[in-house]
């Protein structure tokens, strides 16, 4: 059957003039470039404005972009200023990465099972959901003092705060995913002979995966958002830690370097997660 299909499609393709094919390709190439081109317009404009507003002014509190770029290079590779910050980027980045992913992993391992239970078992929902709803609006920043009393100064507090930031998006999306499984699928499963707890593994879990995944993605995003607060807990390393330290030393260019690195790292980690999702959830029209 394949052979006959090829026989039908081959002449059709070769009959298209070569020029037309090239044109089709160029169009798709342009289309592929269009989004990145559109995406860099705003950052370029911001950079230009920033440059114009700060460059060449002696008493500007905000350093011009070129100074920040130089500092970023020095932070990463050294050789320009050779001060306490030179060649330390990898240390801070690794420290923050470990806290972001560590806190996120703890949050996911608690929030997903809890969300499945809350979504599926009404007694669990009535038992813990009201409490969680009251705790949820409390900002991570507000937990900082209590966290330092309970977990002490240092990385354990950082893990706790990052975990807290990632917890609720994962929990809420998991509950939503479990509760919005099409009831028709339970009927379909039970008439096919899949009943009781088997339905949990064969219907509830796969059906709620897209929502759980969205929760994980949002949770990881929040983990990056709260990393600076998490590293206000007196840890010596980390992107948040150098931002707070550089602020006290009025090294604003280092503060901005920290911001840029957090932005880029958060962006890349989100892209990786999204790619993973597209792979695992290609059955879902929302991800494919």
């Amino acid at each position, binding site marked *: 059957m394949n052979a006959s299909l090829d026989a039908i499609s081959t002449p059709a393709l070769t009959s298209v003039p070569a020029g037309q094919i090239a044109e089709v390709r160029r169009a798709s190439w342009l289309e592929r470039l269009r989004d990145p081109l559109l995406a860099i317009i705003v950052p370029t404009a911001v950079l230009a404005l920033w440059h114009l507003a700060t460059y060449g002014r002696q008493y500007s509190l905000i350093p011009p972009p070129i100074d920040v770029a130089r500092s970023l290079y020095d932070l990463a590779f050294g050789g320009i200023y050779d001060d306490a910050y030179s060649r330390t980027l990898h240390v801070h980045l690794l420290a923050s990465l470990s806290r972001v992913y560590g806190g996120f992993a703890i949050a996911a391992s608690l929030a997903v099972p809890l969300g499945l239970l809350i979504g599926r078992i009404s007694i669990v929902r009535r038992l813990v959901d009201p409490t969680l709803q009251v705790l949820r609006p409390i900002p991570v920043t507000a937990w900082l003092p209590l966290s330092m009393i309970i977990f002490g100064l240092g990385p354990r507090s950082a893990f706790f705060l990052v975990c807290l930031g990632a917890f609720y998006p994962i929990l809420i999306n998991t509950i939503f995913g479990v509760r919005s499984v099409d009831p028709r699928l339970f009927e*379909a499963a039970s008439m*096919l*002979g899949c009943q009781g707890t088997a339905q949990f593994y064969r219907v509830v879990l796969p059906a709620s995966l897209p929502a759980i995944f969205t929760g994980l993605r949002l949770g990881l995003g929040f983990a990056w958002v709260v990393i600076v607060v998490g590293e206000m807990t007196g840890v010596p390393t980390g992107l948040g830690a150098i931002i707070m330290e550089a602020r006290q030393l009025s090294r604003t260019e280092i503060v901005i370097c920290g911001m840029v690195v957090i932005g880029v790292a958060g962006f890349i980690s989100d892209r990786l997660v999204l790619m993973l999702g597209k792979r695992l959830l290609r059955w879902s029209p929302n991800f*494919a």
Partner: protein
Amino acid sequence: MPEAIDPILELRGVSKEFELSGRRIEALRETYLRVSRGEFVCLIGASGCGKSTLLRIVAGFESPTRGQAFMSGAPIDAPGPERGMVFQDYGLFPWLTVRGNIGFGPTSRKRPVEDVKGTVDRFITLVGLQRFAEAYPHQLSGGMKQRVAIARVLANDAKVVLMDEPFGALDAMTREHLQDELLEIWQRTGLTVLFVTHSIEEAIFLADRIVVMSPGPGRIEGEVNVSLPRPRDVVTPEFNAIRRELSLQLHSQHGRKAA
């Protein structure tokens, strides 16, 4: 041997009442019905006549308020693989491929992997979806989805296939194709089919026997036997005579309701 008991389906005095915002709705009142092994029965009637409720009681999704439904002499109290349901909205598992959906039942019932594979292949071929075996439901047309839904219950050894307006969401061309295919499968396999529809033509085209239902409260109003040879031609005088008879039965209900 319980398999040989006839009628394969029986409803004895089945009533169903629902509570809807404090009001009692009588969806089905004192219904008696017998369906023989291998029979193709259509349920037809206006909306609210209880035809879907009747089907859902036979499927085991609802339990009757009074009376009892039986399959092969045994009371029906839960859904089961011997009574396969085909829904209008397909009810396919979106995370499984065509192959996975058709194999869902046998896998759930812990059939050996090799058996499942053979069964699935057989039924994919039966419904002509070989080229789409690895496709996901959202990649299929409505007609293909309904083929998968039919194959899924057949692959799970259904003895009775319950169909709730299965072709209602499809375009006319696809619907006619699937009607033909369904009749072919039914004739080849000796299945029993209970088919809900609101199309008079569809009922006459498919059924051995048409059960006419009426609403408020839902009940069986009458029956029409269709003994035309298959394949049936929808424009013959005989076909039209039955169409007129059914039309009269259905419209007399409307007239009485309006009066």
